[in-house]
């Protein structure tokens, strides 16, 4: 599209834009209201009711009246142009930006009220872009803009701006704003403007229709008990896009059966079951339903109140029957039971058979009941109650997805901001929803995102800030999950770059393993690894005692900061048929499952699976899934996310082959495939399981020089322990050699070293301490005599 064509398509708005530049809408409204009051006063004074009429007051009245009429006419012009239906929304706001005065369109955008609003919503604060404007070198002209052929005019304009002004584009990118984000935020800002304007138009058909009319109730009966224990469904009239349009239509159809339709709405928590009912109420209010529903009112039962005020069987039954009878008698009520399973359970607790209570009414055809239930509760409580279910039509509300939830928040943002007293930037909103989906798997998306927003708002309030930014959300997520989010800070950066050397402080040799682990961590933190898998998954193969477990622990300590973040499972304990249920939970719901609880409580850390080959085959299959998708479902079907976990499985399989290769001087790296083939042939692991690991790492046996290093490390640990007692242990080469000779057997790796230290060194030390030869402040150097004992 050319520039002429583009501007031509906004021609309709030129007049209104011109008006706005002369007298903006806000000012017109203010004038309108002030002058109207003055006109009234002049009328009262001039008409002679209170004081005798005077010519000047009458004159004033007429003049004011004419001014008022002119302003009203101007506003009518404005509203008419603004609200005329077009192919694309918000063209007027776009026109305000496009036709803003000034040669440099970027500058006029940034300084315009719309532009300021949009940039604020993007999380860019005023000072930042004031600085930008003052330092701006490049200046483009409107004539230079080149328009493309994007779908919407708004997209065309902003893309043209960003194409034309590289500096501006980079300025935005530095603040993590791309074109898509810019357009979405613009859409949100325009939407909010529009809602405000709609609120002013009391003469619109929608608004008028929602005013309560006289006389509708007069041929419906009183419902006293019902009035006490229920409340009308709360809903807002201005939903532009119905989120659950299909479900609402379906609800309407199901309920409109002439012989009393009853509907059971089932869906995940937060999926919007009540929203669907609210949508139906909106339809009824607007008069867009079948005649059967036109005068119906929707009331929701206060089930909690009922249960608390009717503490025994008799009261409960009496109250409940009275409520239903009232519903029948009044004839125009659709009754909503917000949580049917809970009501059934409450009744059961009082030894009441709920079915016997409700079925007579349901089958009479004289009631309309909408019952709501979570999916879980439905399965647990209602599925077996077929006598109730036959009278209900089931309506399933699909689970939430991020787009839907985001749209809900965009709609509610006004209320939210008024309640919390803050303003949310659009990136903050996005991060709340995306963060909830990514880091809080298995929780209802809407309520989790909501909690995140409210939490960030409270933090911002405490810090005296009005704007909640994306950083606030990330900080909150980090606090709640322990997963580091956001930009990499300097200390973390140092750790990431020097992972290998840090780990080598604890591990001797095993360069390949350390390198593989470090690479995986760096990829994850840089944000380029696959977010739908664990951070990394590794299979460590090798002889016992060479550092497989130690490496995983070192990783946890170096990177995750505390040794405690190693979630260790000894898989040899899980080789019985009930292993799987011990891990993911038993069906009776009492045991939540070791693995599920572990990961839920520590979503960020190292999962160490020792002796992996020893576990039951079904458990191996479970891990197949976890490694592949980063998620699994526990016994209740709730999802557990392992996407912020590093999985390290260790196994002694293939140790003999490894020994042989090393004994013949071969390279483990080159022979890796050979080793793996042999393991698969032996049936230790299935090939598809091995394939799923990010890396299979072979651990080499420890030879003398390694053993010496390990010995030295362990001696230094001993020395450190002794230092706490005030004893200074000298670690000499002789001591190291002694230890290596005493405590090494390649077959057992470095483990014998521990025993050697215990049996020889620690024994000698203990004897000496007890005998009084060693006390705080003394120095200990082992002599040959000490060691020959």
């Amino acid at each position, binding site marked *: 599209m050319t520039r002429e064509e583009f501007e031509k398509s906004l021609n309709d708005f030129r*007049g209104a834009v011109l*008006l706005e530049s*002369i007298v903006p809408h806000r000012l017109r409204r203010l004038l309108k209201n002030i002058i109207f009051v003055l006109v009234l006063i002049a009328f009262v004074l001039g008409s002679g009711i209170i004081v005798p009429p005077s010519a000047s007051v009458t004159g*004033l009245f007429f003049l004011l009246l004419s001014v008022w009429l002119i302003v009203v006419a101007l506003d009518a*012009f404005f509203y008419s142009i603004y609200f005329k239906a077009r192919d694309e929304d918000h063209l007027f706001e776009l026109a305000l930006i496009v036709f803003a005065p000034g040669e440099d369109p970027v500058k006029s955008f940034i300084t315009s009220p719309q532009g300021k609003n949009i940039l604020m919503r993007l999380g860019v604060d005023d000072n930042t872009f004031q600085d930008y404007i003052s330092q701006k070198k490049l200046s483009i002209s409107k004539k230079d803009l080149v328009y493309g052929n994007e779908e919407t005019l708004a997209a065309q304009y902003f893309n043209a701006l960003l194409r034309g002004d590289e500096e501006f584009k980079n300025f935005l990118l530095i603040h993590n704003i791309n074109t898509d984000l810019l357009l979405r935020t613009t859409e949100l800002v325009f939407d909010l403007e529009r809602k405000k304007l709609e609120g002013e138009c009391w003469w619109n058909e929608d608004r008028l229709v929602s005013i309560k009319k006289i006389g509708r109730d*007069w041929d419906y009966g*009183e419902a006293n008990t019902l009035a006490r224990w229920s409340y009308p469904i709360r809903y807002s009239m201005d939903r532009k896009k119905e989120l659950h349009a299909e479900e609402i239509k379906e609800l309407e159809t199901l309920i409109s059966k002439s012989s009393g339709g009853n509907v059971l709405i089932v869906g995940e928590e937060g999926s919007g079951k009540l929203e669907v009912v609210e949508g139906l109420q909106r339809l009824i209010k607007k008069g867009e339903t079948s005649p059967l529903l036109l005068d119906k009112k929707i009331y929701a039962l206060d089930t909690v109140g009922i249960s608390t005020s009717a503490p025994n069987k008799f009261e409960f039954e009496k109250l409940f029957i009275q409520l239903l009878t009232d519903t029948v008698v009044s004839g125009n009520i659709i009754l909503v039971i917000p949580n049917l399973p809970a009501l059934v359970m409450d009744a059961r607790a009082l030894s009441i058979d709920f079915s016997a209570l409700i079925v007579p009414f349901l089958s009479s055809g004289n009631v309309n009941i909408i019952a709501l239930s979570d999916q879980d509760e439905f399965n647990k409580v209602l599925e077996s109650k077929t006598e109730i279910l036959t009278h209900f039509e089931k309506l399933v509300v699909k689970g939430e997805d991020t787009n839907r939830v985001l749209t809900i928040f965009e709609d509610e943002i006004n209320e939210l901001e008024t309640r919390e007293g803050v303003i949310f930037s659009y990136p903050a909103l996005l991060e709340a929803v995306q963060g909830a989906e990514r880091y809080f798997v298995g929780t209802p998306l809407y309520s989790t995102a909501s909690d995140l927003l409210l939490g960030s708002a409270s933090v911002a309030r405490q810090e005296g800030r009005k704007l909640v930014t994306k950083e606030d959300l990330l900080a909150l997520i980090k606090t709640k999950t322990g997963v580091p989010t956001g930009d990499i800070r300097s200390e973390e950066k140092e750790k990431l770059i020097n992972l290998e050397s840090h780990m080598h402080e604890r591990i001797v040799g095993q360069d390949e393993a350390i390198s593989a682990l470090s690479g995986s961590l760096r990829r994850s933190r840089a944000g380029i690894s696959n977010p739908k898998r664990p951070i990394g998954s590794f299979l460590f193969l090798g002889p016992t005692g060479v550092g497989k477990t130690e490496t995983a622990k070192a990783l946890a300590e170096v990177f995750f900061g505390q040794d405690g973040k190693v979630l260790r499972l000894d898989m040899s304990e899980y080789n019985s048929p009930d292993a799987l249920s011990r891990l993911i939970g038993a069906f009776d719901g009492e045991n939540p499952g070791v693995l599920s609880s572990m990961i839920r409580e520590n979503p960020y850390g190292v999962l160490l699976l020792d002796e992996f080959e020893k576990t039951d085959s079904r458990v191996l299959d479970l891990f197949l899934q976890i490694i592949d998708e980063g998620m699994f479902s526990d016994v209740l079907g709730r999802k557990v996310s392992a996407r912020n976990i590093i999985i390290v499985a260790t196994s002694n399989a293939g140790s003999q082959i490894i020994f042989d290769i090393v004994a013949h001087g071969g390279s483990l790296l080159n022979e890796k495939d050979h080793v793996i083939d042999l393991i698969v042939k032996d049936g230790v692991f299935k090939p598809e399981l091995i394939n799923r690991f990010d890396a299979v790492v072979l651990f080499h046996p420890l030879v003398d020089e390694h053993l010496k290093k390990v010995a030295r490390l362990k001696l230094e640990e001993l020395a450190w322990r002794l230092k706490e007692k005030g004893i200074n242990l000298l670690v000499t080469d002789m001591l190291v050699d002694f230890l290596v000779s005493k405590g090494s057997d390649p077959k057992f790796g470095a483990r014998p070293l521990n025993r050697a230290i215990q049996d020889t060194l620690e024994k000698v030390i203990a004897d000496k301490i007890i005998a009084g030869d060693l006390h705080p402040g003394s120095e200990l150097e082992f002599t040959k005599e000490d060691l020959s004992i």
Partner: protein
Amino acid sequence: MKFLLFLPYYVQWHYTRGIQDLRINLSNIVKFVFNYFSISVLIHTIFYPWRRLAESYSKGFDPSDFFATLIVNTLMRVLGFVIRSVVIVIGLVATILSAALATVFFVGWIFFPLVIAFFIVQGLSNLI
């Protein structure tokens, strides 16, 4: 002045879309007034018992019971009739008034410049 530039846009609107919009809005308001009093519904249900406060006839035939119920029901219907009729009358009057006012506004819109001029002249002549 910008205002002079603006005027042509306005005048064009005033006598095209302006009239259309006004017609729609005014008729909405009149319809609203009519519907507010639920006149058609009230006429349909004019003899219904008030708020369904009626008794049902018991089984069998007991003269005193029967006549007692008959009297109560009749009274409820009379009550309903009276209240509804009053409201119907008020509603009809309100509707006619609002229709009249709407017509005045509509005419006023068409002769808007003259109306304004008239008011200004009146105002100035009274002040001086």
